[in-house]
Each structure stands twice: as C-alpha cells, then as structure tokens.
C-alpha cells in the first residue's frame, strides 16, 4: 500500500503499543527479538492488521546504533529483519513504517551529543529501513527539537520516503526540553514532514488541547497516538479501557485529526474500538490561516506586531567583537546575546563575517554558543551559502536567513537552502544593477524575489523584504524613497518588512537622535522588523511606545510592565559607592560597577599593565590571602574576582580600540575534559587566571584530548589546565596529558576537580594538582614568573 494513497482516506488507522504487546521480560531487548524470535514480533503486527491498522510501526524504535552499542545487536540487521517480518506479517494492504525513537541523549544547548552524531545514527537506521522496503519513516516520542530535526533530515536525505513525526509533550504544553507545540509544528512543517502530531506523553484527554493548538500552527495532516490514560503510580498500569479511549476520539476528529492510533498501554482492541467509533464520522474542517512566525527550540515569536532584531552580534565596525571572533572568545558573543535579550530584543541577528574567519566553521559554533544563553530565535546573517547551510543544519527551530537579493546567482544558491531547511528569508531589494534609487524599482525587485521564493514552495509569510536604508547624508530623498518602498511592500504585498535602522545616520552628528526619529517614521510606514541596537538609548523605548500607540498592546500591559519601575531607585542589589573608594577597594568588596568605573579612570593616567599589576593583582592577592586564612569564603572570593573581571572588560575594550600591545602575561588553556559537562569549577579557575592577567583560552567542556593538544601547540601555551568531575572522565584527562607529553612535551599541566587528589594527579602524569582556583593561580605564577 502506498502512503500517499492512504492519505486520501478520511481517517488513517495506525497501530497501538508494541512494548505492551511483547510482554517483555526484565532485561529483554525488543530489537533483539527481530532476529531471535521474529514470530513473536510478527504476531503483534498481525494482530494490529487484523484490528484494522493501516500502518504498522516496525519493531525498530530503539534500533539506533547509539542505543544498541554494546548489546551485540547490529542495528541495520535488526532493522532489516524487522521491516521484512512486518511486511510478511501484514501483507500488501498495510503500510510498514520504519519506526525511529530518540537516542536517549540530549543535543545542545541542554546536552552534549553533536548534531552530526545524532544525524549519522539516524541515517544508518533510515538507509537500512529503506533498503528493506519500508513504506515510510515514522519519527516518534521525540522531546528535543534539534534531535527531531536530525532525524527528519536523515530520513529525507537518505531515503525518498514520506516522513511523519510525532513529539511528546508534558502537561504544560512543552516537551521536556522546553519545546512548545507551536515551535515543533512550524519547524517540522518547514522541514517537509508529511504529517505531524503528538504521541505518548499522556492520555487522550490531556493531549487534546495540545493537538488543538498544533492545528493552529500547521496545515499538515495531524496525528494523535495517546497513551491509555495516565499510569497508576504504584502498578504502572494504564487505566483506560478500549471503549473509554475510543469515546474520546471524536473530539480529535472534530479538530481535524486524520491519523489515529495508540501508544503505551494500548492494544489491538483499542484500534478496533477507535475504528468503530470513527468510521461513521467525518473529520472536522481545518480552518488554518498561516501566520508569520519564527522560533528557536524553546520559544516562538509571532510576527503580529513590530519585533526587534538585535544587531549587536556583528563585527562590522566593532573592534571588540572582531577581536572576540578572532580569539574564539564565544563568551563575548554570549554576553552580547544576554544583554540584548534583557534589553528587549525579540530576535538576534548573528553575523561573524570578518577577515581571518572561516564563516562556515564559526557561524554554527556562534549559533550554538548563543543558544546556550538565550531562547530568542536567530537570524543567520551571511553572504556565504556554505556558512548559511552549516548554521541552518544545526539550528533548532525556524530561523531567518539574512539574506538573498534580486541577483540571479543569489536566488539560485540561497533560496533552495531556505526551502530545504524551512527557514524564513530576508530579501534585499537590490540586483545586478545595484540598489535602485526609486521606491518603485525596489518594490519591483521585492516582487521578483517573492515570486522566485514562492515558485520553490517557500510560503509568502516566510518572505521578508528589506527595502534598504541609505545614509541620509547621501541625498535628501533617500529616506523618503526607502519609506515609500516599505509602505508599498507592507500594504500591497502584505509582507514583513526589514530595515537596518542605524545606517540612516552614518556620517552625521547626533546619530541617536536621527536613528530614533527614523525608526519611528519607518514603523509608522509599516516597518515590522527593525534591525537595531536594543541597548541604544531610546530605541527599544520607541518600539514599545509605537506598539502601544498603534494598538498592538492590549490594555497597555506590556508598556506598563516595562516601565512601571522606572523612576524608582534601581531594584538591583544595592551597591555601596563612595568617593573615597579605590579600585583595590572596589575589587576587595566585589563592587562590579565601581570597579569598571574606577578602571576607566585609572586608565587615564596609567598604562593597562600597570593597572593590572599595581592595582588589580594586589587587591586579588589580599582577598586570596583572606580566603586561605578563612577570613572570607568562596562567595566573597568569587565576587571579588567578578569585580576584577569587569575591570578587565574595560581594559580589553580599551586595548581593542587602540590596537595596542596586550597586557597579558602569557597564554593558558583551560578545558573540562572529554565526556565531562560540569564546568562551573573550570569557569571559576578561568575567572581567577584572567584576573591575574593571563590570557586564558577556554576550550569549554567535553573537549577531546587531541583538540586540547592541537590548541596548545597552535597557541604555543606554556600551561594547560584540565578539569574533571567524574571518575569516568579522569581517563580522558590522563589521555590528554599523555598526548601532550608525546606531542608537546614542554607544556606543563595543572589538574583539578572533585574526584582528583594529589597522588592521583601524579599517577596520571600531571605536573601539578590544584585543590582550588587559587592554587591554580599560584602554580601559574611559578610557570610564568619563575623567581
């Protein structure tokens, strides 16, 4: 039976629980049974086919190479056997699906499994399933949107089969990793799923509202495959009978669900009962109106009013950002992401294009780093299609691509990527002839871009047009032509409109004033997506005020929430501040803002290195000594270090803008070893080392041994600091030290972490065991500043 033929049916009946029917004994691996007891599995399929299932799921849910590692069961063999035995059992009239469940591990930002590893494991499954003749691929019980995306892409790219996807949600309407129904729906539709829905999770009553919500976010056929109610907390038994379960199905049909089945606790009797209940009915008419929206893996942003795209993560004209990218200092990007999120951005633009940077390598790394600290959707900004594709692959959700333009070459290379990965696209209204001066010509190019996108199947709602802000100083009609074009795109095409707002004031005095006014004019003319600095004074305020005045803010609620505390004393933690405070005092007392301010003052009269050596370090030494003698404790030590860090932030900023010598005393690499994800200790060590003026290259957590060695050699560092918190990862630490000794013997190593002791550190060949961050600094001094 062909899946597409099945789609012509009013209802399509799936199967019910497999585990429930196999009656597994403790420790029995279902995927092994495909090879050892095929008849036992076949009997389940036959029972479902007899009950009326039109698609049965082969017994391959856990046949993932990552899950079967060490079990002795070959995933491809198990899958091929499972598909073949299912086909034999159910015959021609029933479709057999390759069933793919989660790997059981998490991808970033919550976890550490790489996208590539997940993709490869699913690709192996899909290839085996297709080879054995599966009719379609089912991806189910998914929590992690990025993992789901890896599976969908693997299915699409390794097979030509239809893919249907169901995810599992908790009572709060989100998956365990925080993915809302809306984000799942728009992402999976964009990736080309043939049908989507919800399985497992809870009972029918509980998942009904989530299915109704999903219906509002997709035009795809919907799937419902609930558990037989909620399990009894003591026995683990599900409580709904087939009749009770079936009784709840018409409500699903009414909201347009086409695919029906059951999950945990359901049996062929449930399928029979569902069929009987639904056969006389018709499914409800779907009245779906597609809305413009984008999402990350955990947040949906509906583009129903002007939304702010934060522009700060872009090295153009920003020396500090450029330096951070060249130094692989992703924490600087993370910091910018957090500040913009807190300042009111709705979406963040990410651009890493600067000489000396391989965008295809760095853009996905930057995206991943930023998504660790914000849940805002991202706009992937690059003119390099390879970089866009690399970032599109690993982005969890539906991003915006910035940009395509009217040139034939651009349309040909960028739009297919946008379609394949289900993104939204910004079209720049320029072409081979440059930027037209008149609004009419820009509008014309915009129309052409829209037409090209729609021809590829990109929905109109996902095409945003940038009518291009030209600097006001280049011609008095420039701004009004831009605004005229924005108005026409907004009114005549009904598309989202994008503008880089601050270009308007380039080369003119009092830029903030011009920017604010132009922003307000543009919003009034139909600008919906200003690309701007949300921290710049008055900019976010202008958008908030516009939203309120233009009727987007019901009861002025958001406006009031944003400003009701304005005018009252700062709600932040009280900071002691007095005129006699010295930089040393500010550090010792952990006063971040004062430390930054006093550093700026000190730099007027002192060289950066003198500020570090004569002010910051003595202060830190004093706190360190108090810590060692028990006068102050860990929180105070870290607070002082944090204040010193803000002082260093000022020094770095100054140095980046002066292109002067670095004030650091030498490079040190720190890393949490492969397999280990606990990095708080390593972060404290880095903070303290930076405080003492060392240039710390933080390779992050879960870092493979060879990567640490390569970085040590490339940067010619004298010292590598390694952290491990688990007994299981000390082996990786030992391996790293061994490789360092072989390939770069002059480098010293210092190790720390909860499971280590001095003796143990010696056994694995480390030069030093540091019991805490302070001890690491003390050792670094002996390496870099021998007496």
């Amino acid at each position, binding site marked *: 039976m062909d899946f597409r033929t099945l789609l012509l049916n009013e209802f399509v009946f799936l199967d019910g629980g497999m585990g429930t029917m196999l009656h597994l004994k*403790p*420790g029995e691996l279902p995927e092994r049974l495909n090879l050892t007891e095929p008849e036992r599995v076949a009997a389940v399929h036959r029972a479902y086919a007899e009950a009326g299932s039109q698609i049965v799921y082969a017994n391959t849910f856990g046949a993932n190479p990552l899950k079967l590692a060490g079990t002795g069961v070959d995933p491809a063999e198990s899958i091929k056997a499972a598909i073949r035995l299912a086909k034999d059992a159910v015959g021609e009239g029933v479709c057999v699906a390759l069933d793919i469940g*989660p790997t*059981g*591990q*998490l991808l970033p*930002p*919550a*976890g*550490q*499994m790489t996208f590539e590893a997940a993709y490869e494991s699913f690709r192996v499954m899909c290839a085996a399933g297709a080879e054995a003749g599966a009719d379609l691929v089912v991806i189910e*019980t998914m*929590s992690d949107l990025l993992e789901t995306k890896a599976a969908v892409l693997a299915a699409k790219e390794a097979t030509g089969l239809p893919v249907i996807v169901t995810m*599992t949600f*908790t009572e709060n309407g989100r998956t*365990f*990793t*925080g993915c809302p129904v809306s984000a799942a729906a728009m992402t999976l539709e964009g990736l080309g799923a043939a049908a989507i829905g919800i399985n497992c999770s809870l009972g029918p009553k509980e998942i009904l509202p989530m299915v109704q919500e999903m219906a509002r976010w997709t035009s795809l056929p919907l799937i419902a495959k609930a558990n037989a109610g909620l399990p009894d907390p*003591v026995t*683990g038994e599900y409580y709904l009978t087939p009749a009770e379960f079936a009784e709840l199905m018409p409500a699903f049909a009414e909201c347009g669900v086409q695919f029906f089945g059951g999950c945990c606790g359901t049996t062929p009797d449930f399928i029979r009962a569902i069929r009987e209940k639904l056969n006389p009915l018709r499914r409800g008419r779907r009245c779906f109106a597609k809305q413009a929206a984008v999402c990350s893996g955990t947040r949906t942003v509906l583009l129903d009013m002007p939304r702010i795209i934060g522009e700060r993560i872009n090295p153009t004209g920003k020396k500090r950002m450029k330096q951070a990218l060249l130094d692989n200092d992703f*924490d600087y990007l*993370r*910091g910018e992401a*957090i500040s913009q999120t807190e300042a009111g951005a709705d979406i963040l633009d990410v651009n890493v294009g600067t000489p000396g940077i391989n965008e295809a390598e760095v853009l996905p790394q930057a995206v991943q780093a930023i998504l*660790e*600290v*914000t*849940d805002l959707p991202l706009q992937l900004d690059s003119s390099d299609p390879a970089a866009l594709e690399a970032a599109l692959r690993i982005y969890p959700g539906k991003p915006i691509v910035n940009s395509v333009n009217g040139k034939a070459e651009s349309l040909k290379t960028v739009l297919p990527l946008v379609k394949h990965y289900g993104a939204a696209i910004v079209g720049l209204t320029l072409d081979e002839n440059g930027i037209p001066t008149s609004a009419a010509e820009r509008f014309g190019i915009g129309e052409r871009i829209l037409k090209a996108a729609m021809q590829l199947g990109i929905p109109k709602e996902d095409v945003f047009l940038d009518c291009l802000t030209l600097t006001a100083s280049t011609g008095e009609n420039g701004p009004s032509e831009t605004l005229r074009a924005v108005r026409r795109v907004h009114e005549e095409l009904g598309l989202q409109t994008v503008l880089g707002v601050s270009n308007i004031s380039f080369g003119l005095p009092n830029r903030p004033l011009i920017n604010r006014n132009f922003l307000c004019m543009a919003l009034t003319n139909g600008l919906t997506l200003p690309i701007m600095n949300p921290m710049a004074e008055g900019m976010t305020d202008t958008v908030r005020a516009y939203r309120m005045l233009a009727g987007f803010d019901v009861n002025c609620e958001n406006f009031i929430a944003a400003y009701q505390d304005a005018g009252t004393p700062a709600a932040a*933690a*009280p900071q002691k501040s007095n005129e006699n405070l010295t930089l040393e005092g500010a550090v010792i007392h*952990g006063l*971040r803002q004062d430390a930054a301010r006093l550093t700026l003052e000190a730099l007027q009269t002192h060289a950066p290195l003198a500020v570090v050596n004569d002010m910051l370090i003595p202060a830190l030494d004093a706190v360190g000594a108090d810590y060692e003698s028990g006068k102050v*404790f*860990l*929180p*105070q030590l*870290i*607070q002082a*270090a*944090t204040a010193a*860090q803000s002082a260093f932030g000022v020094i770095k900023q100054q140095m980046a803008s002066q292109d002067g010598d670095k004030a650091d005393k030498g490079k040190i690499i720190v890393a949490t070893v*492969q*397999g*280990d*994800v*606990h*990095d*708080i200790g390593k*972060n*404290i060590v880095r*903070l303290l080392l930076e405080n003492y003026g060392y240039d710390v290259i933080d390779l992050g957590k879960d870092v493979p041994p060879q990567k640490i060695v390569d970085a040590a050699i490339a940067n010619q560092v004298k010292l590598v600091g390694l952290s491990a*918190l*688990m*007994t*299981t990862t000390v082996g*990786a630490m030992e391996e790293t030290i061994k490789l360092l000794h072989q390939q770069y013997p002059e480098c010293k190593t210092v190790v720390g972490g*909860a*499971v280590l002791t001095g003796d143990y550190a010696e056994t694995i060949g480390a030069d030093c065991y540091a*019991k*805490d961050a302070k001890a690491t600094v003390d050792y670094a001094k002996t390496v870099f500043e021998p007496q």
Partner: protein
Amino acid sequence: MKPDDLDRSEILMYLNTPSLDENLSAMLEDCVKKLCAAAQPRTVYRVLPVEHTASGVLLGGLPLQGEDIALHLTGCKEAVLLAATLSAPVDALIRRASVTDMTLAVMYDAVAGAAVERVCNDLEAEIRAKYPYPYYTARFSAGYGDFPITQQGALVQMLDAPRKIGLTVTPAQTLLPMKSVTAVMGMSHEPVKDARRFCCGNSCEECPYHETCPMRKENAV
C-alpha cells in the same frame, strides 16, 4: 517549588561558607526565588525485587556492582529505585549566570543542590507513606562507595527516565539535565544494620565538597 521549601543552611554548606553579608544574602534570596520559578521538578520511581546471590545483589534483575550496595540492601526483599530532576531550565539559568556573573552561577549551583535534595526528600516521604515498610535505608547513588557510576545508564534505563521525566545519561555517565539524582533505597521490616551511612548521604571520597566539608572532620568515612 517555593523559596521557603529550601534549607538555607544546606545552601550555605554547598557554598562552603558559614554566613553571608547583607549584600550576598540579598543576592542569594533573589537566586532562590528565580531558581524556584525556573525549576520543573519531576520524579519517577519503581519498587523492585531485590535478590541476593553469591556474586552480589540484583535489583529488578539488574546486577548491581560493588560490596557497598549489597551491604546497603542486606536483608531487603524490595528496594526503591528513584530518579529526580529539576529539568532543563535550571541548567539554562546556571549557564546564563556563568557568562554574566560567576557569583550568581555559584549561588544557583548551590541552591539547585539543595532544591534537588528537597525534591528527593519529598519523594521519599511520599514513598514511605505508601508502602508498608517500617524501615528504609538512606538513598544510595551510583558513585557512592564502590557502587560504580558506570551503572548510572542502566539505572536510568530501568526507570525509562528519558521518556518519563526527560532525564538522560551521557556516554560518560553524567546525568542530564545536570541537577538530577538517581538513588536506591532499601525497604525492610527490620533495621538494616549494614546499611552504609554517610554524613551527608554521600561518600566523602566521591563528594564534591570532600576537601572542605565541615562535617567531614567528625564523620569521615
């Protein structure tokens, strides 16, 4: 979870400090409030048969390695295997703080430690109320004593924890989300004399605070 649910002295222990000044105290209270708002505590447990054999103890058919866990379950015919997690948003909170302010990050980390402990205590109370056993041994986790951390994956799998509460384990046997616990608790009709006891429910050698824990001096195992 509410701010009042958390034991402040336990948080201070994790912070390795006897007290905090006014500023830091205010910061800590703010952390407690934000963490409680972010946490989505989830738990799962199973009561499983215990079988003592010559080669060791089996829990629900799974051989548990090491002498300590076997002693810990001496005489028990059943035991609870439990898992608890504060869920992914807490990890995200700590990640963000690690970038903006390490003091906050360290505080969140300590508060999360106390919070997951509280979730386990509540679950334990619920279990004790439900089953007719007068005696329970302390919660014993993989990584304590000679009960190897490498069994973490098998315990998580036995509870179907990825599907039930979104708790996963990495190839290096780290629980993710990070602020999570698994533990085994023996159920008995008599006191279990050989049950392993640790000062904070943890073995000092494996305890992240083993260098500095004030309780270690009196009760070191």
